[in-house]
Each structure stands twice: as structure tokens, then as C-alpha cells.
């Protein structure tokens, strides 16, 4: 189908890497920092909060182009819709700063953990954990079939337009879901055989290291200073 693009490059994210700190502690620190940033309105607090993303940006190459294209659109909307143009601009800049800071922090701190590390850090109920596993596996299976079906559709009927194109797309989605259903049942048997729903084991080391304690303490002080600066 001309006009449809379909890309999925999740292989790079699905690796499990060794981390110096516990994934749970890293996730908790990143989320607390993001929370502090999202409630901060004053420029001094945001300037203080920008130190961490600046350090991350110095150490790692993080692409912020895509997120800032979205920011530019939002900034334009704010300027056009806010009662006073200058206030709208300031508000837009504050939100853009926040979005960039949170994005860089999450990308810098959480991306190295990989899906495996993050998955182990999240304390999820049994059913939800199995659902995450099956969904992730389902994405790989369906992506393969979906891509093939879209290519076949494009080759067989390149002239499809309007409602006919939407009908073809709907049939592709429905048939891919149905085809994947049988394979998914086998995945479910595999999960059950490995102990799912009877206490799916997570091989996670939850011991707290001195490095974790230091990281928690540093983040607690940093976040307290940001929040204090915001409300001072």
C-alpha cells in the first residue's frame, strides 16, 4: 500500500546488559527525578534540574531531534492559543525544557538497562508479567506477518485508494491476529510448562549494594533541592 510506512527496530532495546546499580533503584531514581521536574514551574528550579540531563548528554549521545520537532509544534500551538502571546511562549518553553529533561534522563538512565532490566525492576502481578512476555513475543510474530502482508498487498493492488484501502488494511490486521492466534497458544503452553501462573520465577537479584545506597542518597538530596528551589 503506497503511503504506509512500517518500521520496527526493537532488537537494540531487547538486550540485557550488566548494570553497575540495581535496575529497580535506577528506575525509582529516574521516576522520582521526572516527577520533581514535572511539578517544577520556576526557571531556577528547572535550571538546577537541567544539570543531570546535561551530564548525561555529555557522556552519551542521545538524539533529541524527533522530540523537539514535536515540541516546536506544541510551542506554536501554545503561542497561538494562549490569551497573551508572551505568556504562552514562556509556558511553551517551560514545557519544552521539562520534556527534554525527562526524555534525556529516561533515555540515558533506563535505555542501558534494556527490557530485561526494566522488566525485573517493575513489580508486576503474575498475570500482568505473563501478559508483558506474551505481548512482547506477539509483537515479534505479528510484525513479521504484518510486514509480509502489507508488502503483498502493495504488490497485488498498488492502485487501492480510499475506503477500499482501509478495507484491505482491516482484513490484513484481522487475518494476522487470527493467524498468530495458533502460535500464541503454543507460547502459552510454553509459559505454563515453565511455571507460569504457578509462581513464574524471576531470576532477579534484589540485594542492595553500597552503590545503590549512595545513588539513592544523591538523588534524594538533588530532588529535595529542586523541589525546595521551586517552592522557595
Amino acid at each position, binding site marked *: 500500500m503506497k*503511503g*504506509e*510506512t*512500517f*518500521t*520496527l527496530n*526493537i532488537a537494540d*532495546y531487547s538486550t540485557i546488559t550488566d548494570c553497575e546499580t540495581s535496575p529497580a533503584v535506577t528506575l525509582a531514581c529516574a*521516576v522520582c527525578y*521526572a*516527577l520533581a521536574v*514535572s*511539578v517544577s514551574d520556576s526557571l531556577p528550579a528547572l535550571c538546577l534540574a537541567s544539570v543531570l540531563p546535561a551530564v548525561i548528554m555529555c557522556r552519551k549521545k542521545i538524539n533529541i531531534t524527533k*522530540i523537539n520537532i*514535536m515540541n516546536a509544534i*506544541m510551542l506554536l*500551538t*501554545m503561542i497561538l*492559543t*494562549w490569551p497573551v502571546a508572551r505568556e*504562552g511562549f514562556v509556558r511553551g518553553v517551560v*514545557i519544552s*525544557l*521539562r*520534556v527534554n529533561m*525527562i*526524555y534525556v534522563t*529516561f533515555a540515558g538512565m*533506563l535505555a542501558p538497562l534494556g527490557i530485561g532490566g526494566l522488566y525485573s525492576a517493575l513489580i508486576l502481578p503474575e*498475570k*500482568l508479567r*505473563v*501478559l*508483558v512476555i*506474551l*505481548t*512482547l*513475543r*506477539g*509483537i515479534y*510474530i*505479528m*510484525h513479521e506477518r*504484518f510486514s509480509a502482508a502489507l508488502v503483498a498487498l502493495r504488490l497485488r493492488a498498488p492502485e487501492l485508494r480510499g*475506503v477500499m484501502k*482501509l*478495507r484491505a*488494511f*482491516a*482484513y490484513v*490486521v*484481522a*487475518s*494476522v*491476529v*487470527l493467524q*498468530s*492466534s495458533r502460535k*500464541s497458544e503454543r507460547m*502459552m503452553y510454553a509459559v505454563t510448562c515453565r511455571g507460569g501462573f504457578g509462581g513464574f520465577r524471576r531470576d532477579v537479584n534484589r540485594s542492595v549494594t553500597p552503590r545503590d545506597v549512595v545513588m539513592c542518597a544523591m538523588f534524594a538530596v538533588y530532588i529535595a533541592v529542586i523541589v525546595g528551589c521551586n517552592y522557595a
Partner: protein
Amino acid sequence: MHISEGILSGSVLAAGWLGSAAGISYGLKKTDTAKIVRTALISSAFFLASLVNVRIGPSSTHLTLLAPMGLVLGFGVFPAVFVALLLQALLFHFGGLLVLGVNTFIMSASALLVYVLFGKFIRGGRYAVVFSFVAGVTAVMTGACLVGAALGMTDGNFFTAAKIIIIAHIPVALIEGVVTVFLMSWLKKSAPEFLS
């Protein structure tokens, strides 16, 4: 329909997480262990559908499949949407982890509303095509209105931006309506067990 990080206030974020947590726990309780595979499949389809861009004139959009999700999963839509959005946030940084609660609530509540309002009529057969179309449109427009409400509750000055968001979703809602009609008719013919 994703709200980015850093826009919403703390109280709206907290309300979103509370609503989502309640929905997810109830949805998990209602989801049969045997049906968890179907939930995962629909969740994967929702994830993948958001990566397929469909052109509308000079612009392009992506489908959400909210109405089909709601009609197939019922209350199970809460955990399905949560997992899909979690993976999107982790893998592609769409939305974010802090706003995950609000985004989950917005999309799941829209899908669930469609299930409650139109589920019986679409399964019933008579005027199913009309109800499917209305369901598709309703799901997207409800989602857009909830996004607007979340922005409005954060700051009253966001209301104009919220209006723009709602108007921008009208073509997407019409496309979703058409796709929902074809999807539901195909599922009714070829896999009626999905709608049971």
C-alpha cells in the same frame, strides 16, 4: 492521542494512575487465564497499528484500533492497553512512564465505553455495520475529549489547545469508524469466538 511527559499537573497524573490501577486490577480479575493469549495478541496488534502510518491528504496519521480492542476484550482492555503503552514508552519513548497512567486511562476508558454502549448491538447482527461505525468514531472522539479534559484540568488556558486536538481527531475518528466496520464484519464471519 499520547500526552507527553512534562505537560500535566501532579494531581492529574495521580488521578490517571489511580483510575488506571483500579481498571487494571479489575480487568486482570475479569480476564480468564485461558484468554490471556488473546489479550496479548490484541495488545500486540494495538502496538503495531500505531506504527503503521496512513496518509490523509498531505498529512499522515496512525490507527489506534480502540473500538475493536474494547469490543473484543471488554474489561480486559485496561491491562492490554497498559502493557502496549508501557512497551511503547520503554522501546520508543512514545508518551512516557509518568503519564502512562493518564494515557492508559484515556484509551482504555474510551474502548470500554464502546464495549458497554455498542457491544451487544454489534454482536447481535441487525444494524451491526452502523453500530460498528459509530463505535469506531465514538472511541476516538471520547479519547480526544478525555485528552482535552486532562489538559483543561491541568490549566484552564489549555482549553483552546484542547479544542484544536478534538477537531484534529475528527478525520482520524472517521477512518477508525470505517476500519472498525470492516474489522468487526471480518471477525464476525471468520472468527466469531473473538467476539464471544
